[in-house]
């Protein structure tokens, strides 16, 4: 098990070979913004919010998809990165239909928090106002694609932790959408065990428990760490 030594924001950091720059930074107390990454699930590299500058590499690299290397020099905080992150979040707002004032996740939303932490006060690109579907066919949960940012945390948790693989995506670009099983309504997807894991990992108000009203949907992130630790280390402890 070889250990790599690198520099992140001027700080000497070590990481076991194979770990990501994101993970090494996190261990060292350096928090890189992220949206698609969630500890305990595989990496996807879909949102590009974790972009960092690495010396010798001309292009920005997603920290969650980049493995630590000996002698790497990484910067996670620069005017250029900040500008990119800001624009990415603005694009996410413009791409979907985010009407926070009437959203179940208002006040408990990772997308909103990102916007706030990046100092976004308005969106500089035109809102697209796409026609997207709401699926309320499941007896306990609902999916509102207007608020989906396609991080696919739901898809990964359902596949990798629950083992059901109910969620998948269909289409490309602007017509990308989340589908249940072979594209039917969630309520009729036989693979779903109704465990609710997807709802808990969703960073936005796209997946929520029925009966939640504006601002009422809070997500419990700790459960994922609990299950993952329990499986990997056979320790059933709640932190």
């Amino acid at each position, binding site marked *: 098990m070889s250990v790599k030594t690198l520099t992140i924001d001027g700080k000497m950091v070590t990481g076991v070979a194979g770990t990501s720059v994101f993970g090494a930074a996190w261990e060292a107390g350096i928090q890189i913004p992220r949206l698609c990454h969630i500890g305990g699930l595989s990496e996807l590299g879909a949102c590009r919010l974790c972009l960092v500058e690495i010396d010798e590499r001309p292009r920005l690299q997603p920290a969650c998809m980049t493995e630590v290397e000996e002698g790497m020099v990484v910067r996670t905080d620069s005017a250029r990165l900040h500008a990119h992150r800001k624009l990415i979040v603005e694009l996410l707002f413009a791409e979907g*239909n985010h*009407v926070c004032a009437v959203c179940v996740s208002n006040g408990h939303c990772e997308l909103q928090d990102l*916007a*706030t932490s990046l100092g*976004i006060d*308005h969106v500089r690109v035109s809102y697209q*106002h796409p026609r997207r579907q709401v699926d309320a066919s499941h007896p306990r949960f609902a999916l509102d694609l207007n608020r989906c940012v396609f991080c696919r945390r739901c898809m990964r948790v359902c596949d990798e932790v629950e083992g059901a693989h109910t969620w998948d995506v269909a289409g490309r670009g602007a017509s990308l959408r989340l589908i249940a099983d072979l594209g039917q309504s969630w309520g009729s997807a036989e693979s779903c065990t109704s465990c609710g894991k997807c709802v808990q990992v969703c960073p936005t108000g796209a997946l929520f428990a029925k009966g939640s009203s504006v601002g009422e949907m809070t997500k419990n992130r700790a459960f994922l760490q609990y299950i993952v630790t329990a499986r990997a280390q056979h320790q059933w402890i709640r932190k």
Partner: protein
Amino acid sequence: MSAQTSAAPASVNRAGKPRLATVWLGGCSGCHMSFLDLDERLLALAERVELGASPLTDFKDFPPADITLVEGAVANEDNLEVLLRVRARSKVLVAFGDCAVTGNVTAMRNLFAVEDVLDCVYRQSATVVAGLPLGGDGVVPRLLPRVRPLHELVRVDHFLQGCPPAADRIFDLVVALLEGRTPELTRRFG
């Protein structure tokens, strides 16, 4: 990007006080209600400003203002005309509340064609159908094809989020502008 206009506004009236105006476009008036929630601080504010155009005053035209808070998105031809005039006559223009900043609930109709929206409201869900208010008759303003936030149409100096923004935040903003400070604004986007 918005110009961070933070210079102390010069007085424009006989009383020597800066003039504060508020405008109501395509919104629910909730931001104005929140403004009224300043309660006794309204008196403190009244000491420092002269009230210009607002839904409470009766100006036939918009007199020049130092600070104008504009509530609501731009939803119809009338809103657009008012906004352009207000921008031309305001030193500092604030997008007041989520509808002004993002389009918010007002812009939810952008998912549909204007004709379909009017048809749904005035024909399908009406008990008495008296025709569609299509505008252009000088009585009802014509709806724009898309509801838009202010900054897509004019320069906006400051963005005050919230649906509605809390009274404290409105007060902080106005006081900061009066004192020539750049207001701290983003507490939550959207």
